[in-house]
């Protein structure tokens, strides 16, 4: 019995909607427009966040790092991860890890014939590094380091420019070793790196890890074990696994596992801020749309006062009428939402394959690791969250006129003009 009733209600509601085609079409268009904008904008935001995260992660930090406790804040030479090979052995066994590498850093005075600069010199494992970061692909002049290289160095292009060196030139490095001794050596520039991010290109200098360890008397210790995950989503699980593995091996005391959010806290907060300010704007948009269509809902009730009076007179309960009216307005909304999701998704998919040209502001975006073409990324979340919010708010807008039905008296309503 119940199901027959509901079926009847839905049928009636659907026919009622199309009693005034133009009004319904306009209302649906308004909802469709809002959903379309929301789907596209959210996909766009989420897509660029992912690009930004990946750019930072690939360029420098990796998704996760194992470090000596306190190293991240203090960057002190003495806070090392000793026996990194053992950590490597633990990482090999954890699923979801794409690659890992070792790095060591020392702030040193680097001089060419003409110039001197203070630079953070990083020791990298050339083969492993190429799997973890995009550094190898950023070589613009000369060549990338090889496993057998010793006193060779790759330099960021802005740093090379300010030191006035090109591949083949000699640089001297003067710094402090792990034991406090003086670390000094001469190296040959092998390659120049161009990432487009000024901060990176101005400060990067990398030498082979083994050579670094010899020069800075590091033994076989390193400062960072850098890990990339197969996907961003797996990071928190991998983090737990690594922590467990380290604890099991009895190395849990001095070592910490940091994920990208801890390594670059500004990135996460920056993203959150952008997201929150986006949300405020979307909320305003949805509220404006809700008021825009509230009149439709109001009208569809007030112009039918007589009709409702009669239905009540022949025994329809106010509750059922409210249900009927709500089904009407919500099916209207649903049609709009579905259309909006479809249109929004199609637009998003189009730009997802073609990209959006941001070259007008490319200099600025580049500094955040955002490329000149941005690709929105359609996902279940970006396609559904906005429309869901629209649904909730329009439901509230529909509820307000609908409850007014309860106050109707059959006789008065029937005589209403």
């Amino acid at each position, binding site marked *: 019995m119940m199901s027959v009733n509901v079926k009847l209600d839905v049928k009636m509601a659907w026919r009622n909607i199309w009693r005034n085609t133009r009004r319904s079409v*306009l*209302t649906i268009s308004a909802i469709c427009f809002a959903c379309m904008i929301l789907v596209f904008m959210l996909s766009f935001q989420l897509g660029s966040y992912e690009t930004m995260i990946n750019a930072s992660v690939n360029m420098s930090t990796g998704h996760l790092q194992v470090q000596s406790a306190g190293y991240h804040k203090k960057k002190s030479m003495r806070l090392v991860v000793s026996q990194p090979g053992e950590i490597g052995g633990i990482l090999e066994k954890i699923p979801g890890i794409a690659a890992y590498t070792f790095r060591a850093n020392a*702030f040193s005075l680097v001089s060419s014939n003409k110039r001197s600069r203070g630079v953070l010199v990083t020791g990298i494992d050339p083969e492993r590094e190429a799997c973890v970061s995009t550094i190898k692909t950023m070589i613009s002049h000369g060549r990338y380091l090889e496993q057998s290289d010793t006193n060779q160095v790759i330099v960021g292009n802005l740093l090379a420019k300010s030191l006035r060196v090109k591949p083949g030139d000699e640089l001297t490095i003067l710094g402090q070793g792990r034991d406090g001794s003086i670390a000094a050596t001469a190296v040959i520039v092998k390659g120049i790196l161009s990432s487009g991010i000024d901060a990176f290109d101005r400060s990067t200098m990398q030498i082979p890890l083994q050579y670094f360890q010899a020069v800075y008397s590091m033994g076989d210790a390193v400062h960072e074990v850098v890990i990339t995950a197969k996907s961003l989503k797996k990071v928190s699980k991998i983090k737990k696994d690594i922590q467990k593995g380290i604890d099991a091996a009895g190395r849990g005391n001095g070592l910490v596992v940091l994920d990208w959010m801890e390594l670059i806290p500004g990135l996460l907060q920056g993203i*959150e801020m952008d997201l929150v300010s986006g949300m405020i704007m979307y909320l305003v948009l949805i509220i*404006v749309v809700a*008021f825009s269509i509230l*009149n439709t809902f*109001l009208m569809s009730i007030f112009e039918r006062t007589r009709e409702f009076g009669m239905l009540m007179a022949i025994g329809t309960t106010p509750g059922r009428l409210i249900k009927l009216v709500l089904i009407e307005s919500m099916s209207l909304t649903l049609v709009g939402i579905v259309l909006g999701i479809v249109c929004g998704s199609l637009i998003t998919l189009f730009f997802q394959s073609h990209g959006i040209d941001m070259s007008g502001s490319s200099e*600025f975006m580049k*500094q955040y690791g955002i490329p000149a073409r941005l690709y929105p990324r359609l996902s279940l979340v970006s396609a559904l969250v906005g429309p869901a919010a629209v649904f909730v708010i329009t439901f509230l807008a529909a509820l307000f006129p609908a409850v007014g039905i309860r106050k109707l008296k059959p006789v008065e309503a029937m005589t209403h003009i």
Partner: protein
Amino acid sequence: MYSQLAWRNIWRNPRRTIVIMTAVIIGVFSMIFLCGLMRGMEVEMIRNNLATLTGNIQIHQKGYRADPVVENSMTDPVLLENAIKTNLPEGAAWAMRVRVNAIVSNARHSTGVTFVGIDPAKEARVSFIGKAVTDGRYLNSDDTNKILIGRALLDKFKTKIGHKLIVMSQDADDEIASTAFRIVGTFRAEMESTEKAYVFVTLSDAQKMLKLKNGISEAAIAFKGQSIDGQKEKALAQKLKSRLPDSIYKVETWPELLPMMREYLSLFDNFIYIWYFVVFIAMGFGIVNTTLMAIFERMREFGLLKALGMKPVSIIRGVITESFFLLVSGIIIGNIAGIITVFLINRTGIDLSALAAGVEMWGMPRVIHPELWIIDVITANLVVLVLGLVVSIYPAAKAARFTPIEALEKT
């Protein structure tokens, strides 16, 4: 007559009018308020950037900006001083600096910084540093081997006021010069990166250490009320250029000095206009729909008017006048609400310190004081009013097309 008729017509159904007016009010309010927030942020960002050793105009030796080293210094400060002094507008300040990259270190730590030699009294009127000292004291012009560093750098080095730091840099003879400086004070800045990036000593100390004689790296001119488009700066730069030989000196205004900032601002502008448009469309659907409803209800009325000889144009005019009143009422209330909100929040500002790291990443100020620009308010209102009237043409034309017969038939 039109206006009186229209005004009465929109209040025939107060509930409906109020609902659609609310949509317009919220739309206009959000346009004005959010735009005010963004402008407040923009202005603060520019102010911060200019105060962080940029100034409104800078003068360098030609090659300095591409390669900021000692050998690209300006060797004739007297010529420069004369050129600036004769052109300096009322209330403006200027200062000369030595500015090179250097390494600072103590027994345990070392890091790269920008080493700045300043004339303490003059510099205080040009950049943030004069007001930024929180512990210890600011530099005096007769100080020798005293250094002022950022709070964050002090913490990073785990050192204290009164302790020594070694500064190393390349001098004019291409040798590595190193000098010990005693910390006299620490400063705080809007950005932590600023606190880590700059250390200050007196101009004469820097010149002595770098064997510069009386050479300087840059001259900065600052005046109040920086213009967003940099027009004021351009005019002054033009005057300075005529006094200084082109082959040696380069005079640049802040938009040229901070190209990133300029791009950021244009990105903001575009965003604001897109946002205006999107909000309008959301309103537009409601305006069309509501007006249509009002028209169809009054079909008989329009038919009668036509039967009595009213011209279609007059009907269109009447309906559009109704929309006009609706829009204008909504716009006025929206403006008042927006302007009041902006003014209330402008006093206290919105504090974003809780998100310090995120704020720093986007280079945003920690406290935003929203601020109204006439041009934005006018644009917002024009967008709503003009487009609102344009979309009302459709229902108006509909009303004009009712024939008396079909209209009067309708019950």
